[in-house]
């Protein structure tokens, strides 16, 4: 029997997932670039439907500071931001991960100024790629809802203790109305145990967080962070597995579509994935042996899963939504080139950057990128990147 689905804006559904998680503290700066996510949470708190502290702070920097304080006392903590907001938050964003403070952020991915733009791309999230947070990317509204609940489970697990960013494409997902299947509160309760933090700030058990780190100790603290995020991997898988058994929706670090017999694949991260699959269906009908590889887990990066997924393919066409200026092209392609370097029989990589600041990448565009990319790969024209749709 098909379960009831509700037509609802993705931002609202995501906020309701955070409310179902019975979040204790939400801190956010309620002005552009913001989404309906925190607006709806503010409404739920004001209406008395959610028993939580909603802290409307004076800036994004303060929002993340409040989140750190809240997580440090062991409260379930949520926030959401985008674009310039994330930029202003960035100083404290790094501290949240370094101090191993579990919290969940819905990161509605949008471009950075200048020129002034708040439309969708991945420039904001790439800015904080190396901050030490767990990053997951979702492709649609249902995945946004599911991963909000999943993120609390992962973040607060005693084996993890890290903040988690649920990356969803701004506007393309945040402002869409989609059919979404909700999970009942009892199921959420079973899935999300009460958050108990071992060394939460409390007068009875005094500890110092965010201490001074001399050169004699800093290196060791960074290794502990590196191992900490890598060790999150089994918990990430276990939480997905359990979510799958409860809902029938199973997720994986790297997901593949029609790749088994594919000669080459398009690689996507985020909402690109769904369009890519549709276009691949059409190309398959025309005899193209093409598949889709979708990156769901960005940090910790699932190197083994990725290598396994692309083993034996001749070429990958990697679609990025950000540029590393003066660097190796798109950040995703750069990561994948690094992942495959030295692997025997590694597929060649052709990199396209598209969809910057909300420019549409429609089915015809995917078709062009895939076919042109294939030709480039087979002609060994794989250096740098191509800015798709560029005039001039």
């Amino acid at each position, binding site marked *: 029997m098909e379960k009831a689905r509700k037509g609802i804006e993705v931002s609202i559904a995501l906020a309701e997932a955070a409310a179902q998680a019975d979040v204790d503290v939400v801190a956010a700066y309620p002005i552009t670039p913001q989404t309906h996510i925190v607006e709806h949470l503010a409404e739920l708190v004001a209406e008395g439907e959610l028993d939580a502290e909603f802290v409307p702070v004076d800036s994004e920097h303060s929002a993340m500071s409040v989140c750190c304080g809240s997580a440090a006392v062991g409260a379930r903590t949520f926030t959401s931001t985008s674009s310039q907001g994330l930029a202003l938050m960035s100083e404290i964003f790094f501290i949240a991960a370094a101090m191993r403070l579990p919290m969940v952020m819905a990161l509605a991915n949008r471009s950075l100024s200048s020129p002034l733009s708040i439309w969708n791309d991945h420039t904001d999230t790439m800015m904080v790629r190396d901050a030490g947070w767990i990053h997951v990317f979702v492709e649609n509204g249902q995945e946004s809802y599911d991963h909000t609940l999943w993120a609390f489970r992962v973040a607060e697990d005693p084996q993890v203790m890290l903040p988690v960013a649920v990356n969803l494409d701004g506007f393309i997902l945040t402002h869409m109305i989609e059919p979404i299947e909700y999970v009942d509160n009892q199921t959420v309760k079973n899935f999300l145990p009460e958050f108990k933090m071992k*060394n939460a700030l409390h007068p009875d058990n005094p500890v*110092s967080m965010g201490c001074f780190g001399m050169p004699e100790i800093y290196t*060791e*603290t960074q290794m*502990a962070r590196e191992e900490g995020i890598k060790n999150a991997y089994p918990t990430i898988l276990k939480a997905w597995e359990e979510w799958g058994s409860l809902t029938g929706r199973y997720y994986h670090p790297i997901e593949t579509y029609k790749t088994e017999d594919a000669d080459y694949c398009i690689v996507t991260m985020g909402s690109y994935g769904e369009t890519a699959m549709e276009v691949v269906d059409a190309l398959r009908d025309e005899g193209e042996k093409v598949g889709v590889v979708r990156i769901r887990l960005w940090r910790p990066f699932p190197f083994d899963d990725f290598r396994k997924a692309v083993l034996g393919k001749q070429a990958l066409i990697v679609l990025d939504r950000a540029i590393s200026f003066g660097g190796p092209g798109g950040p995703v392609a750069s990561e994948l080139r690094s992942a495959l370097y030295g692997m025997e029989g590694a597929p060649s990589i052709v990199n396209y950057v598209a969809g910057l600041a909300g420019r549409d990448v429609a089915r015809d565009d995917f078709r062009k990128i895939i076919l042109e990319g294939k030709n480039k790969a087979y002609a060994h024209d794989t250096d740098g990147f191509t800015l798709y749709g560029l005039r001039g």
Partner: protein
Amino acid sequence: MAKPMEQIKWQELEVGAIAVEVGNAREYETGTWRSERPVVNKDQCIKCGVCWIFCPDACIIQAAQGHFEADLTYCKGCGICARECPVGCISMVSEEEG
């Protein structure tokens, strides 16, 4: 007493590198940073405690006779006490000159 910092292995750190042993800053002897030390003229000292208030390291202690002096185990030699003393009874002396 906590293990000396330079001997701690990364596996031994608490999650988030938090310090669970409270007050262990005491074990870090910042007096080794000093290039000049404050010397108090006890006869001139009016025992007002201004140096005690201003010391950023809280290393000024009141002696049994009532005058104030720095605990050289922690004093970094910043000279704020000498600058703030209303009667000018504290002078900074180079450690090199002994």
